[in-house]
Structure formats: structure tokens, C-alpha cells
């Protein structure tokens, strides 16, 4: 083996180990913050694998989108709501863990078998290296034009929806009748889902009205 292929091999093993161990950690670690950071590591390792496949644009996009945006967002969400809360004990937890572990192992064996038995078309198409960026652009504006444009609608809607759900200014009256509204389902609950800790209306305020 030449030096180049040795380096390739070592890099591949290191990155794959990063992906596998990292994702196991994401799932198994009890501390959710560790899981989130490990997820970032997994994304980075995947980017490294792309790099080894000569797909540098996809690798950089992976880092930018998954590490820079998705993972930071996840961390943000965790850190903003990381309230220490003791959750109720789940009955039969070890058995459940065993079961889900068994299902995962079964799925893994199935995939392994599929992978071994399928006559994959190796080697695949030859890598285009730095021309890949141009190739991606051509695809986006020819045979993948429709999904590309539709994705813009999807992103616009996701953005607007997120703003609607997150914004604080709410209408307190119905614009047509002027009645009070509460932005809840019209079908009211008979038994409250959550136990109210504070009274919704201040009795003193009621008295002054």
C-alpha cells in the first residue's frame, strides 16, 4: 500500500469510528447536552466522509447546515429550556430497553444481510472533484428545478409558521365581534389537561371592572 492509500484508510477508519461511536453516544448518554454536542461531532465526521469521497462542496454544506445551523439550534433549545425536572418513573424500563435494543439489533442484522446480498454497481460513477459545484448547479436548474422551487415554498412556510407560533403579540379580541378570545380550540375542555398553578384572572382586577 502506498502512503496515500494508507492515509485514506486511517482517515476512513477514524471518521467511521467517529460516526458510529458518536451516534451511539447521542442515543445512549443520559445527559442531553452531551448528546447534542456528540451529534455535532457525528455531523462533522459525516462531512469528513464526504470530503474523502471528493465531494468537498457537499462536505462544506454539511458543516454549514448541520453543524452551524441545525446543531446550534438544538443546543440553543436545550440550553434555554434545560430545567432540572425529575420525571416520573417509567414502569418496566429495563424490559423496554431490552426490547428496543433487540429491535435495533434485528434491524441492523437485516440491513447487514441486505448489504451483503445486493450486487451493488461498484465502482460507482467517477468523482468529478471541483466540478461538482457546477454539476450541482446544473442539476438544480434542470431536472431538479421543480423540487428546488418547491423547496422555497416549503422554507417560506416553515419560516412564517415559526414566526406565527413564536410571536408574542396576540389578539385579545375577535376583530369582528369584539369579544374576548383566548387563542385556544373552540371546543373547550371539561377537565383541564394541566393543573392550573396560578388563577387565570386576578380577583382584585375582576372587582375593579
Amino acid at each position, binding site marked *: 500500500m502506498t502512503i496515500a492509500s494508507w492515509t485514506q484508510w486511517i482517515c476512513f477508519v477514524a471518521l467511521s469510528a467517529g460516526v458510529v461511536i458518536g451516534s451511539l453516544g447521542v442515543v445512549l448518554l443520559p445527559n442531553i447536552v452531551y448528546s447534542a454536542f456528540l451529534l455535532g461531532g457525528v455531523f462533522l465526521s459525516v462531512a469528513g466522509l464526504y470530503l474523502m469521497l471528493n465531494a468537498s462542496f457537499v462536505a462544506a454544506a454539511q458543516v454549514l447546515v448541520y453543524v452551524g445551523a441545525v446543531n446550534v439550534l438544538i443546543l440553543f433549545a436545550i440550553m434555554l429550556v434545560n430545567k432540572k425536572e425529575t420525571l416520573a418513573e417509567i414502569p418496566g424500563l429495563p424490559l423496554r430497553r431490552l426490547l428496543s435494543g433487540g429491535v435495533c439489533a434485528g434491524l441492523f442484522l437485516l440491513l447487514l444481510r441486505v448489504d451483503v446480498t445486493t450486487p*451493488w454497481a461498484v465502482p460507482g460513477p467517477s468523482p468529478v472533484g471541483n466540478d461538482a459545484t457546477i454539476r450541482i448547479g446544473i442539476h438544480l436548474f434542470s431536472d431538479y428545478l421543480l423540487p428546488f422551487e*418547491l423547496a422555497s415554498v416549503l422554507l417560506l412556510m416553515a419560516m412564517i*409558521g415559526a414566526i406565527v407560533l413564536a410571536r408574542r403579540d396576540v389578539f385579545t379580541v375577535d376583530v369582528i365581534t369584539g369579544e374576548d378570545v383566548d*387563542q*385556544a380550540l373552540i*371546543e373547550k375542555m371539561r377537565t383541564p389537561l394541566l393543573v392550573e398553578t396560578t388563577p387565570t384572572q386576578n380577583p382584585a382586577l375582576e372587582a375593579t371592572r
Partner: protein
Amino acid sequence: MIIPLGALSTLFAEAAPAAALPPGLGITALQLNAGAIAPESAILIALLVCLLVDLAGEEAASRWVPPICYAGLGTALVLLALQWNAPVEPSFLGSFLADNLAVAFRAVVAASTLLSLLISWRYVEQSGTPVGEYAAILLAATLGAMFLCGATDLVSIFVALETLSVSSYLLSGYMKRDARSGEAALKYLLVGSAAAAVFLYGASLLYGLTGGSTGLEAVGLALQTSATPVTALALVFVLATVAFKIAAVPFHQWTPDVYEGSPTPVVAFLSVGSKTAGFALALRLLVGCFESFDAQWKVLFTVLAVLSMTLGNVVALAQTSMKRMLAYSSIGQAGFVMIGLVCGTEEGFAAMVLYMAAYLFMNLGAFACIILFSLRTGSDRISDYAGLYQKDPLITLGLSLCLLSLGGIPPMLGFFGKIYLFFAGWADHQYLLVVVGLITSVVSIYYYISVIKMMVVKEPQEASDVVKAYPPITWNLTGMQPLRAALVACVLITAVGGVLSNPLFNWANGAVAGTPMLQQAIASGALSSAVG
């Protein structure tokens, strides 16, 4: 803006082929053949105008958004009618195909959005949530569903699926101050994302098999030559996604909670529009691609159909909430439609299309009634409907007719849809499915009729407290007139459409006859049964 069914079908029947396309479309129709998505473009324009109008404030939005939506959806329906029987040419270099099947399902989706919007204005205003964004998100969901009906490559399918799903999550969480709505959105999001991930995994396997192509045609070709475990795995993954979208048992767990927690008009859309898109996806993927695995997916779908019909209809018996009952009933209804899919004959496909159209009107009619009831009383419990006949004859009549139709009682539209499905199944020797379908229909009739009995038979003194305190009936508030129009139209079509259903039959048969993909499947099915 309601287009009566008769007018709709004559439009479809009389529309000339491609030559009749509006002159403006000719310019865009270069080699992309972009005219195929003209209906979607109309909806997209309506969506953007809604968002712009919404900038002017809530009052302007509540005045102008409804007409804009009607105009967009109406134009889309007219453009769809013009596409009927047009020569089938792949557009966007193989990403989209506007065959008759796609046109029919897209029309059902667009009509379901139109009706859902008509019945939602008052609901949205009364809950105090912004109208402009509501309409825009619902239109985006429609856009996703319509693209899903015609998409012919894996990437387009996935993006369309996600557009539909993301908009649906947003809509189900739209009543943001209500814990139930939040719960519904979160559950839907988690389960939906898992389903999307599974689909993506299956799609990546299919992509690997084709060796670098995402078109469904290439996938179909690759599947014909490869009979390895990998195709079985891909089949299972893709099937799981389809089953999730049409809420077939055992992929249905999200349905009751999502239906209960979402705003009722959204449930109306999800139960019809989203499901229609799911069936279109099922046809494209299973009939179009997995043709060489015909026997396998048909066995799987038979199991799904039997489970859906049984569980959906039996569990619906025990429900006390109207929305939950309709959720389980919709699971059962999806089971009936699956009979047509399993048949794989000309009659089977036509019965599917017909039943989806019939389901559109009867289900949305029922939803219009329960929305009206909850607007007036703030309740959706079945026991609260007791004695409603005395106070509100319109709701009582409408709901009774729609529920009878859903149950499949003769002169209604639903009866003809169901009988056509069962005939198709019987002709294709699917005896198990038909027998299960008949038995569960009887079960469903029981719980539908018990609601009607609750409304009609109870004496005035036995009426529920809610009904005793029933407010005087007024229609003068903004948004009530469209609700009434939608209610009356749906109920009329449900009641009369059954007797005058010939145009609808012709339309459903035309949808199958004008779809090369289905014709091919029917021909090969006939050939194999002749050989067998």
C-alpha cells in the same frame, strides 16, 4: 364560489384537449412543459397575495383574504378542468406528470381546501388567531398535496411530502394557547418526521438500485431486474410512509390525538386533502414502481385494509368526542378505499377515485355541521348533541344525511361509492376484504345512527344542557355565510349526488382510462391472471 358537482363534471367532460389551454400558458410551455403546473401556480399566487394583504393588518386580512383564496382555488380548479384528457407529457424533465389520475386527485385536494377554507373563517376569527397566515399555510399544504399527486421522481415526492407535512404540523398547532393543540402538533411532528426519515431511507435504497437516477420510471425498470432482499426492504419502508400518510392501522396512532387537538377545519382538510394525496402517492409508487412485486405489496395492503376497517370502526364505537369518532371513522374509510387499491383492476382504481370524491363531500359536510355546532355551543361531545333537532334543524338534517352517507345507507352518495368498491373487490375475488368491509360497514352504521338518534329522538326535556342553552340562530357574522354555503352544498351533493351520480362515474372511469401508468398495470394484471 362553490362549484356544483354537475357543473364540475361537465367542465371536465367538455374541456377540449391541450389546444384549449389559455394563450398565456403557451409561452411558459417551452421544453419544461411548465403549463402542467398552472393550477399550482394559481394557488401559489393566491398564497403570496394573502401574505402581502396580511401586512395591512388583521381587519384588512379578514376582509380580503377569503376572496383571494376563492379566486386562487377557483382558478386552479378551472385550469385543472382544462387539463383533463390533455395529451400526457412529462413536465419539468420528468419531475411531474399531469395525467388524468393526477388531475382528478389534484381536483379533489383543491376542492377539499376550498371547502375547508369556507368552513374555517368564523372558527379562526372566533379563536383569535391570525387569518392571513392561516390561509397561507393551508394553501401551502394544498400546494404540497397537489404536487405529491403528480410528482414522478423521488426528490419531488419527498419535497412535496415535506411541504404538506410541515404545513400540517403548523396548522395542527395553530391554536397555540391550547395545550391540546400543542400536544397534537408535537405528536404529529415527531411521528411525521420519523415517517419522512423512513421514506428517505427507502428512497436512498431505490436510488442506489437505479445507479444514479431518481425518476420513478428508472426505479420501476431497476426493480424489474432485481429481486434481492434490498427491494423488499425498500418496499416495506416506502409502504410505511404511505400507510402513515393515509393513517392505515398500525400506522394510525397519531390520528386520534392529532384530530382531537387540531382546529376542526384543519382536521377537515387533513382527513380529506392529505389522505387523497397519500392515496395518489400510493398509486404512483406501488402501482407505478413496484409492479414486479405486485403479489407482495397486495398481501401487505390486504392486511392493512382488514386491520384499518376493523380497528377503525370498532374503536369508533367507544368514542365520546365527535372529532375523535370522526378520526376513527376516517381510519375505517381509508380501509375501504384500500380495497380498490388491492384489486388493481380498472373498476378498482375507478372506485377509489369515485370514493375519494364522494368522501370529500360527505366528510366535509359532516365537519361543517360539527364546526357550526361547536361555534354555537363550544362543545364537540356526542352527548351534547342530544335533542338538537328541536333547536337547530339545519345542523341535525345536514349531519344526519352526511353520517348516513358515510355509513353507506342507500340513496346517498356514499352508498354508491361503497357498492362500487365492493363490486370491484368481489369481481377480483377479494372475498375476505369484501366480507370484512360489509361487516364493518354495519358496525359503522351503528355508531353513525346512534349520533342521529341522539339528535332526533330525544324529547325536549331530555336535551343536554348545552342544547337547552342554545343561542338564537344568526348568520350575520362575517364568515357564517360561507360556512352555511359550504354546509348546504356538501349536504345537497351528498344527498342528491347519489341518485345523479352518472357524471361522477364517467369522471372516475375517465381518470383511470386517461392514465397510461394505470392502464399498463391493468393490462399486465389481466395478462398474468389469464396465464395463471
